[in-house]
């Protein structure tokens, strides 16, 4: 194959290889990774050898860039960059899309069963100190950054807070919260809502939509304290010998029609103006959070790599997970 691309399962159209080949004559091989962390580990240990294009969330793209493992985006070779919202070309971790191209973006909030929850939640505290009726029926994301973000935001801090004292406060809050928690879950939380095991879950907007597909009473809300902006990006490996082809691939993805596929199928917002505008309005009707504008989204704070503070986050999360 001309290109090896690693992505999450189901994150691209199944027939991407055929359509891309039809468009460019190039062959691609898509492999899947389960999580950012795994593919990161593999890229770091293997110096990225063998991979050409990788889909990772923004903090990981940032790290890869710091490690000097990414190839610059050749703007000339990706004319479809023009389809992106201006906001998407000005993201703080990579202003001007020097080494990454955003693929999807969204935020994190509360996903809940409006038919079960007595009062509609609007605060992180509804999750962390739930009312009696939903005690033991809440879940939180297990991944360290989002888990900590809930605590930090509830306390009014930045999702990238590096002050150890504040991290500690958030940690303590989260340890308290564990007592009323059903589980930490970042894969099947939406089905827990559907089945009724959970009533209120900590969720990425897009995944809440999967729940909504099956139960109309499921709703998504961004808490009043604010939230994070996450971006899943496309990067090209420096060690790739097929950088020109990789640019063609990115350009192909950024084509309005192709990029719209992501929005329509994985129910994530895409930072592609042309694609978003092509969406069926019914989709937004059914999944209200799909209608969030770039302006709304960029109000939220981008998750950034934490540098040395990462150690404090890791330790805090270990302590939370070990608490009983």
């Amino acid at each position: 194959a001309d290109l090896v691309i690693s992505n999450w399962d189901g994150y691209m159209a199944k027939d991407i290889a055929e359509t891309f080949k039809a468009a460019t004559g190039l062959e691609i091989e898509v492999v899947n990774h389960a999580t950012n962390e795994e593919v990161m580990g593999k890229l770091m240990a293997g110096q990225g050898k063998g991979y050409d294009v990788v889909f990772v969330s923004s903090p990981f793209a940032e790290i890869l860039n710091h490690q000097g493992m990414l190839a610059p985006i050749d703007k000339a070779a990706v004319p479809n960059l023009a389809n992106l919202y201006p906001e998407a070309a000005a993201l703080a971790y990579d202003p001007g899309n020097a080494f990454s191209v955003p693929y999807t973006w969204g935020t994190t909030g509360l996903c809940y069963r409006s038919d079960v929850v007595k009062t509609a939640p609007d605060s992180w505290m509804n999750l962390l100190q739930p009312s009696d009726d939903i005690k033991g029926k809440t879940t939180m994301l297990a991944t360290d950054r989002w888990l900590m973000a809930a605590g930090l935001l509830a306390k009014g801090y930045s999702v990238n807070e590096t002050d150890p004292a504040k991290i500690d406060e958030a940690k303590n809050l989260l340890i308290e919260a564990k007592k009323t928690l059903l589980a930490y879950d970042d894969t099947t939380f939406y089905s827990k809502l559907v089945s009724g095991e959970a009533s209120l879950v900590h969720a990425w907007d897009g995944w809440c939509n999967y729940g909504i597909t099956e139960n109309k009473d499921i709703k998504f809300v961004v808490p009043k304290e604010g939230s994070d902006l996450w971006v899943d990006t496309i990067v090209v490996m420096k060690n790739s010998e097929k950088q020109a082809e990789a640019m063609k691939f990115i350009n192909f993805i950024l084509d309005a029609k192709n990029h719209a596929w992501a929005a329509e199928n994985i129910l994530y917002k895409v930072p592609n103006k042309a694609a978003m505008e092509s969406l069926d309005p019914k989709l937004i009707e059914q999944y209200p959070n799909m209608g969030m504008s770039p302006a709304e989204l960029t109000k939220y704070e981008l998750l950034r790599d934490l540098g040395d503070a990462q150690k404090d986050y890791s330790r805090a999360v270990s302590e939370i997970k070990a608490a009983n």
Partner: protein
Amino acid sequence: MAYQTTRPNMLAAPAVLWLLAFMVMPCLLVLSYAFFQRGTWGGIEYTFTLDNFAHVFDPLYAKIFLNSARIALTTTVLAILIAYPAAYAISRAPRVRQPMLLFFAVLPFWSNYLIRTYAWIVLLNREGLLNGFLSFLGYQGEPLSLLYTETAVIIGLVYNYLPFVILAIYSTLSRLNPELMEASRDLGAGAIRTFWRVTLPLTLPGVAAGGVFVFVLSIGNFVTPALLGGGRFQMIGNLVYDQFLTANDWPFGAALGMALIAIMVALLFLQARATSHASGERQGEAT
């Protein structure tokens, strides 16, 4: 024994070379990172430091170690209690049927770990089959919330590692000289005392091996605690995993890994000494 003094090393050589080349060398490479610093943006900064080892002694990690050791130990004990009678029954079945029984004991484990675990979720759910079965039996109370508890984690671990213990115990039971048990009965010991004083000590190496399997696999497991435990329980394997992948802190991961390996090897040495003492090793077979 004269004729064996040179040969044992030759027999061990292929495995030893394999391990030296593909385990020891690579691991030394990675574990040596423990003496360096994490770069601000991940990666390794080649500045010598012992800080990582100092952090290993954080009481938090001791707590996690002890807690996961407790779960692993409970799992181990339960697995042995279930596996022993099963292995015993298999070893007493007609000899031609034994391989088949063993095979059927491991067959479920040729499906996939994740899907078996998901099947357990289906079973243990509040709305799941187990509760359904209970209410079918006439149980009226609140459905049992088994899922996302330590119990669920232990059930999952016992389930997945049970066949390993069965195999290990069977392997020592399979050619145990039945006359030894007869001699014990003859001397006035009932079936139970015969088991405790003769059968068990003679099969202790198998029990120990199986126990070690369950223990090391459980303490290093992170899928079951995440899925059946709802991520509420932290196993020690998880901790090392997080350092390498989530925190991108290889130096500390290496230090933790080293400490873990050292503790486990030390424990295994102690265990080996204890069982070889209790089982009076190497003897006892008649044709």
